[in-house]
């Protein structure tokens, strides 16, 4: 009888290691998996039964003895029931995350047994241009934030001449309330390797890098171990799966700089330089890492590719709305009752995610605002909860989907403080290359402090508008260019927090 406990760092952050150790001390055989993504249930313990896995959670180490004596091991103890029948699981459409939480992340046999490498095998039997066409036809757009069509990017790299090309995976995932990249790398690293290998074949690259932020040591360790295993399996190296593709890849670790998630800054960092943003053109597809043609894609973009190849472009493109095709992985965080990852087609509304699935706030107080798309994303009020998750619908509403992270705030939030924080964050993380961002962010903090202190409020609010306009129009990249988005959306929707008395608490 196998018992499953997640080894994902979120699960471990609330005691999964201790629960697993307690089970093992009681003589139970424990298999460590990724997390199902129902993080409010962690540590979640699952047990095989003839009907499927049943779940118990959250489990404390102290609960383990009692659970075992009431029938944990044959699944007869009262608990959550069949895990895959829980509403959170049943209503998802798990493509990229199909194996996460199910298998031992570092078992190559499990990868194959659960449908891994099917996409790779298909791709290797196709001409590179046909693989690119398949990705284009799927409608896949970059999941890192900008939503650029992946197929177009790949086509540019395929068309670029040169003996050396690179595939670089952006795993810098610096946005608050995003953790799906991390969970895929920790929970199913072979899927990312497979996606990058398909990309290498499609564009003619021989070398790949995964740039992982240093705040993710477990993801770094898991990816490194998976790459070693993949080499031993012949999934990386020369003549992959008997084809004429030769491709190998490496993990590189960031060093606590948010800006290194911007693709050109990431490339500079990979080259061993300061993470200064490069002016475009040239675009990385033509002159990227060490000046060579380079694919830069987010973890989730590359993670979607194996399924697209395995099931066909059409199956993927059939999902979603408008120009947002396929599924994406939404991440519910902050003050939320049921937080975690949820993979579904674009088009689900913000309210469905936050209220129906997320269950509202953890504090039990009313929701006041959510921030969608990370620190450069807009604050959205409850009145807009019928917005569908769709790149264009969000853009029209003056917001952005970004990497799909949603941070929830209850009615105790002070929105002028959050606006101040947006500037503070920008000031701390700016690469310093251009003045509107480097100086503007510092001015923004000062201006917000004056507004909050009630000094010359009218004048300072006008100054704030000017500053935001300057940063939006004059910044070289979206760090300075989008910092006004959280600021001005907070202002627009929660004016009272900027004009009321005694704001500085």
């Amino acid at each position, binding site marked *: 009888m196998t018992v499953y406990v997640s080894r994902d*760092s*979120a699960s*471990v*952050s*609330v005691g999964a290691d201790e629960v697993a150790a307690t089970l093992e001390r009681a003589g139970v055989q424990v298999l460590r998996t990724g997390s199902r993504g129902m*993080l*409010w249930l*962690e540590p979640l313990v699952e047990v095989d039964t003839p009907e499927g896995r049943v779940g118990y959670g959250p489990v404390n180490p102290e609960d383990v003895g009692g659970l075992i004596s009431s029938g944990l091991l044959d699944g007869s103890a009262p608990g959550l029931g069949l895990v895959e029948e829980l509403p959170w699981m049943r209503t998802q459409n798990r493509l990229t995350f199909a194996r996460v939480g199910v298998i031992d992340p570092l078992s190559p046999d499990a990868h194959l047994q659960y449908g891994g490498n099917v996409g790779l095998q298909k791709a290797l039997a196709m001409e590179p241009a046909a693989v690119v066409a398949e990705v284009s036809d799927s409608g896949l757009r970059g999941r890192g934030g900008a939503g650029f069509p992946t197929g177009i990017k790949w086509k540019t790299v395929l068309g670029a001449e040169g003996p050396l090309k690179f595939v670089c995976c952006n795993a810098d*995932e*610096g*946005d*608050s*309330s*995003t*953790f799906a990249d*991390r969970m895929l790398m920790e929970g199913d690293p072979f899927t990312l390797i497979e996606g990058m290998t398909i990309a290498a074949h499609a564009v003619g690259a021989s070398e790949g890098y995964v740039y992982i932020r*240093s*705040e*993710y*040591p477990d993801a770094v360790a898991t990816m490194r171990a998976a790459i070693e295993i993949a080499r031993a399996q012949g999934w990386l190296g020369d003549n992959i799966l008997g084809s004429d593709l030769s491709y190998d890849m*490496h993990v*590189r*670790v*960031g*060093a*606590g*700089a*948010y800006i290194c998630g911007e693709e050109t800054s990431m490339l500079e*960092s*990979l*080259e*061993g*330089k*300061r*993470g200064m943003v490069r002016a475009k053109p040239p675009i990385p597809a033509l002159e990227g890492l*060490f000046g060579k043609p380079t694919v830069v894609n987010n973890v989730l973009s590359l993670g979607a590719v194996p399924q697209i190849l395995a099931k066909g472009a059409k199956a993927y493109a059939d999902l979603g709305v408008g120009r947002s095709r396929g599924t994406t992985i939404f*991440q*519910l*965080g*902050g*003050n*939320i009752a049921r*937080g*975690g990852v949820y993979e579904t087609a674009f088009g689900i509304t913000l309210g469905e995610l936050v209220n129906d699935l997320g269950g509202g706030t*953890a504090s039990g107080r009313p929701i006041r605002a959510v*921030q969608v798309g990370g*620190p450069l994303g807009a604050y959205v009020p409850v009145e807009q909860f019928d917005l569908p998750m769709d790149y264009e619908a969000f853009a029209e509403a003056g917001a952005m989907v970004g990497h799909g*992270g949603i*941070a*929830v*705030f*209850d009615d105790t*939030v002070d929105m002028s403080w*959050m606006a101040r*924080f947006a500037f503070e*964050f920008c000031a*701390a*993380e700016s690469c310093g290359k251009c003045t509107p961002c480097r100086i503007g962010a510092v001015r923004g903090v000062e201006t917000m402090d004056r507004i909050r202190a009630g000094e010359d409020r009218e004048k300072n609010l006008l100054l704030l508008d000017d500053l935001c306009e300057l940063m939006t129009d004059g910044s070289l990249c979206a760090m300075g260019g989008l910092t006004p988005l959280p600021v001005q959306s907070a202002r627009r929707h929660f004016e009272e927090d900027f004009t009321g008395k005694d704001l500085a608490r």
Partner: protein
Amino acid sequence: MTGLAPSAQVVAAEECARAAFAEHAGDRGPLMPIFHTIQERLGYVPPEVEPVLADLLNISIAEVHGVRTFYHDFRHSPAAHTVLVCRAEACQSLGGQALMAYAEEALGVDKGEVTPDGEIRLEQVFCLGNCALGPSVMVDGRVHGRVSPARFDALVGEVRST
């Protein structure tokens, strides 16, 4: 390291830099991996490594210095343990800001500083990827979720005694 005379410290730093360089000789653009290796071994990246690395990598000292000081992670002084408190938005919605204030008070230092006994470095961090289980804290590379002030004290107590 702290017990050694300054000159011995310099020698140790230079040796560490040479060893790290040799280990990453096959890497493309090896400076970041080299710095990480040095930091793993010494607990920080001392300025003394700059001329050695500039020489070995055939780049200017200014460039090596620029990289060392650009990244928040490459610390400028040693500390036995590193405590990161998340101040990003999702954790703020659950009291991350108050937790940082508590951490500063409990440790008697401001963020960015090391306790006088050289034991604990307190730093802010913007997201640890644990945003559904905040407020989050990382202690020596391990993430902890739903950290209350009492839990914070316990976590610090655990590393202090080891």
